[in-house]
């Protein structure tokens, strides 16, 4: 589905990285593979350092820490927050919505909208889409989009496919109405037939967690995981991304009457180095325009990876400059979504460490 919004603007992005840093080299012995194989994959896939939460740290903790940072530094006023959208697959509880918990703990005003959205790697454009729609309301002038996930808690320590790339993080994006006459183009796509390609089978109402669902089983590739863990059919996801993302971007640029060279940056979800490099090659986009350094430095934190890519790679540049940026997220659902927008002259654009 094609989307089009007028007079909206991102005015600030903050990424919050959790306190623990894990190095792939220290985990190699967890996996049932030769050291040589693992070291080769390290280079190809971008396995490196990743940030993960300590036991007990939740999505709401990361978000509250980041929001307090903005309040304390006068980058955001509590009374200005008219809506808060939390995009996460790892809520604090099934009930109530984690966005409500955050609203309560921060003592935000009651006259506001709070909602949780369950989206994975396409969660950044999906959250922005929701924010843009909320801003159509007369009484909504500022929306806080929270992307946060702690999926490291759901990945088996013996899963070489998912464990070395999975990180945790939160990001806060402020979206406002913009008096200048700008247009933002977007697309959102869903294919629920691929729902099982990336899934945590147990732990919900369909298959509650039991001692049996916690039993580790080894697949034919030597990865061990249980039904309580994240299960990724890596080759299905890879093929889906290579097949669907390039035409999505082509269509997006066509709707915006832009060619690919006019885009300053392609800030894409960061699944792994190999997949993103293949995407850039297929799209004919120079690697310099598509940063690919988040997995190796922080890990893939699902829907948080796009704002992390922006704050880590552009940071202060976005305080004074403006760029035409193409955002794209793709993953579980299956879902894939994108936006093309002018971004710049932000009030803040930085990466901070969570310090409990």
């Amino acid at each position, binding site marked *: 589905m094609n989307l089009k919004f007028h007079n909206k603007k991102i005015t600030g992005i903050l990424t919050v990285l959790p306190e623990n840093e894990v190095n792939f080299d220290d985990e190699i012995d967890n996996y049932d593979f030769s050291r040589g*194989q693992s070291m080769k994959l390290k280079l190809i*896939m971008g396995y490196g350092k990743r940030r993960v939460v300590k036991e007990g740290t939740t999505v709401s903790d990361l978000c509250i820490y980041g929001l307090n940072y903005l309040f304390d530094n006068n980058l955001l006023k509590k009374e200005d927050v008219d809506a808060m959208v939390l995009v996460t697959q790892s809520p604090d509880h099934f009930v109530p919505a984690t966005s409500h918990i955050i609203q309560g703990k921060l003592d935000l005003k009651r006259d506001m909208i709070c909602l949780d959205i369950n989206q994975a790697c396409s969660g950044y454009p999906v959250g922005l889409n929701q924010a843009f729609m909320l801003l159509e309301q007369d009484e909504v002038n500022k929306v806080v989009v929270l992307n946060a996930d702690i999926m490291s808690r759901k990945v088996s320590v013996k899963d070489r496919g998912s464990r070395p790339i999975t990180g945790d993080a939160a990001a806060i994006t402020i979206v406002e109405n913009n008096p200048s006459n700008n247009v933002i183009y977007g697309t959102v796509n869903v294919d629920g037939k691929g729902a099982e390609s990336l899934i945590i089978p147990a732990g919900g109402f369909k298959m509650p967690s039991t001692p049996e669902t916690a039993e580790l089983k080894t697949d034919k*590739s030597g990865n061990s995981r249980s039904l309580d863990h994240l299960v990724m059919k890596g080759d299905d996801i890879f*093929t889906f991304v*290579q097949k669907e993302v390039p035409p999505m971007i082509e269509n997006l640029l066509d709707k915006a009457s832009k060619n690919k060279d006019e885009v300053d940056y392609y800030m894409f979800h960061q699944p792994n180095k190999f997949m993103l490099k*293949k995407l850039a090659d*297929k799209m004919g986009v120079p690697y310099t325009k598509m940063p690919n350094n988040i997995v190796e430095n922080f890990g893939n934190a699902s829907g948080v990876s796009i704002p992390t890519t922006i704050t880590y790679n552009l940071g202060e540049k976005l305080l004074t400059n403006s760029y035409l940026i193409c955002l794209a997220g793709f993953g579980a659902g299956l879902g894939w979504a994108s936006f093309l927008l002018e971004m710049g002259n932000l009030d803040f654009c930085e990466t901070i460490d969570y310090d409990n």
Partner: protein
Amino acid sequence: MKKKIIDFLTEIRPEFDFAASNNFIEEGMLDSFDIVSLVASLDEEYGISIDGTEILPENFSNVDSIYRLLINNGVTE
């Protein structure tokens, strides 16, 4: 080129005789991570980027299918 393909395969999984097999996938000789390693080696060796939509198990089932994949991606003998 086929000898080079076998050399790369053997480097990735030295325990198997790739010259003697006609279906690496069905016989469990290659998994998806092995294919990723092989693609990276072939890309580097031949200065190409194998199209992501062609990185499918069936294109890595034997030496001939890998050979055809390379030809389709612009490699010449």
